[in-house]
């Protein structure tokens, strides 16, 4: 398969001016400027094949967004090389922009006071779509993303999940070859997350759009991507299949229960540990290698008066910590 993204030893260091405290510190900083360097991305190398969905994950400050911004030509790297669709992003940013799309979960490209349809029309002009091709594509996306009832409503009146559906549809109008998604499900509820994931997955499978996804949410990765790159402090810690990540690090799930009665006795189950039990709340961690999650849930539901239940993956910070432990063990064994 041809590669649509190639990254070799990419590095980005931000420089910040250090200001002293108080009036004296400020005056001194003018006379003698001190700089503090932050290495956001360190020696990063990976590649994405055509039509592949790759997850780039890591905790806050790991360098995920900085990587996306360099690959879309927005930021210049400090050193290293990258080619996206065969071009160097920061040298041919505008040409690249015609062929890729970027969605930032925390930034909107839709005009806030106007219906999303107006932004669609503007993007058709900006991406130089032929009127007939635009009409056809728009109708197709409106149908797939079920946007018809939303198109006449001002964006400011849409829910976050509805807005995100419009954002992704807007990004796909010009049939990009690569879709960069930076935290597309941030702040969404469970149902909206599922909808967004299934729509992105559908576009990836049906249209062969390569996807580079960054997320804090292990669920996004499991449902959308086959391969995952984990970075922390700008360095690659793991680059392998999601199934390997799952087998090694995502086998622990967290079950959060709200009970109808307080201080209930929790049944003893193999592979299930009580993390917290207080009043009506109960938090359990399940090792799914020992106890499949369905069986654990069924057993708990059978004996406890459950009012509400949430199942989550272990937080990314825990996964990263487990990776560090593994690396330390490997070094120790050597």
């Amino acid at each position, binding site marked *: *398969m*041809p*590669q*649509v993204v*190639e990254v070799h030893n990419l590095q980005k260091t*931000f420089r910040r001016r250090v200001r002293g405290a108080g009036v004296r510190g400020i005056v001194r900083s003018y006379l003698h400027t001190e700089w503090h360097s932050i290495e956001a991305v360190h020696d990063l190398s990976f590649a994405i094949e*055509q039509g592949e969905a790759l997850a780039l994950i890591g905790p*806050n*400050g*790991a*360098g*995920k*967004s*900085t*990587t*996306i*911004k360099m690959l*879309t*030509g*927005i*930021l*210049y790297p400090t050193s290293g090389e990258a*080619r996206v*669709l*065969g*071009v160097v992003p920061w040298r041919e*940013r*505008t*040409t*690249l*922009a*015609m*062929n890729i799309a*970027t969605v*930032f979960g925390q*930034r909107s*490209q839709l*005009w*806030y*006071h*106007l219906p999303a349809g*107006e*932004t669609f*029309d*503007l993007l058709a*002009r*900006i*991406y*130089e779509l032929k009127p007939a091709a635009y009409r056809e594509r728009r109708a197709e996306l409106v149908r797939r993303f079920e946007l018809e009832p939303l198109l006449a409503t*001002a964006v400011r009146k849409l829910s976050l999940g509805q807005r995100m559906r419009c954002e992704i549809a807007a990004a796909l109008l010009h049939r990009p070859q690569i879709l960069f998604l*930076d*935290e597309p499900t941030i702040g969404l509820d469970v149902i909206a997350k599922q909808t967004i994931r299934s729509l992105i997955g559908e576009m990836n499978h049906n249209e062969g759009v390569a996807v580079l996804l*960054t997320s804090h949410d292990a669920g996004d990765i499991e449902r959308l991507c086959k391969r995952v790159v984990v970075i922390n402090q700008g360095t690659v810690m793991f680059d392998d299949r999601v199934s390997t990540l799952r087998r090694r690090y995502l086998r622990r799930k967290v079950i959060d229960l709200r009970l109808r009665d307080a201080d209930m006795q929790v049944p003893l189950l193999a592979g299930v540990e009580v993390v917290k039990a207080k009043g009506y709340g109960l938090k359990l961690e399940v090792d799914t290698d020992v106890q499949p999650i369905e069986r654990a849930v069924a057993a708990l539901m059978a004996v406890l008066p459950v009012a509400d239940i949430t199942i989550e993956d272990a937080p990314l910070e825990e996964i990263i910590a487990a990776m560090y432990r593994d690396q330390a063990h490997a070094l120790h064994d050597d």
Partner: protein
Amino acid sequence: MTIEGQTLRRPGGLLLTTGKVWAVLCITLRSRLAYVGELLLRTLFLILILFTFTQLWHATNLGKNVLVATGFTIQELIWYLVFTEALMLSAANARELEVDSEVRSGDIAYRLGRPLPYPLFHLGAGLGERLLRFTLYLLVGMVVALVVVGPIQLSPMGVLMSCSIALVSFVGDWIWTFAISLTSFWIEDTFGLHLLYRRAFMILGGMLIPLSAYPEWLGRIARTLPFQYLVYYPARLFVHPDLPVWLAALGANLAIAVVGLLPLLLLYRIGLRFVSTQGG
């Protein structure tokens, strides 16, 4: 194996880019029209200014000698003020500071990922906003002038001349203010520079009274600087249409825009290397 050789779509030429700027201008207009009430409220300030100055000039008995001093009658002076105030108040300060804030916060990064150069996006948005405000202020100002001092002989040619110069001056004014905003790649806060520029625009451009009424020393300074072409000349043509003056003002405004492109492009090219954005 890379995908080199596969055809990439490339952005089109000047015509398509102009179409994109026009599309941004139109959507900005529609977006601003979503708040007509807010726009109308802003015109209250204009009404207040026009009313105050009319009273002031009558009270100081300026009317008697005004024709000698400025070449304008008192009615013409008020209509001149209508035009200069529409020019001044339509200069959207918030948009200048938006560019400044986008550069400093790194939000510029989110606009750079589109096949429309960042300055051209803001040109479309800035012109859309300014045209809307200018039209509104001019219309409201004309109604106020009609009520307060009565009509003057406005010719369609004069309106066409002054508005065409105003339109070109909007582009020149935008180029310089955008260049000032781009200095925020290096300067913490460009508010001071913008304030200085706007005050020079007001005072040396002849916003309150025509340059012909200035004290000689100040008039000499104002006539050596380009601000007169952004304010005085379009307003003068509104009241006193004159083809040679129109041609001179048009040439000067085009020169202001072309000369301004140099610092703008230089600052933008260098500034792009300084884009810094945190997160993730």
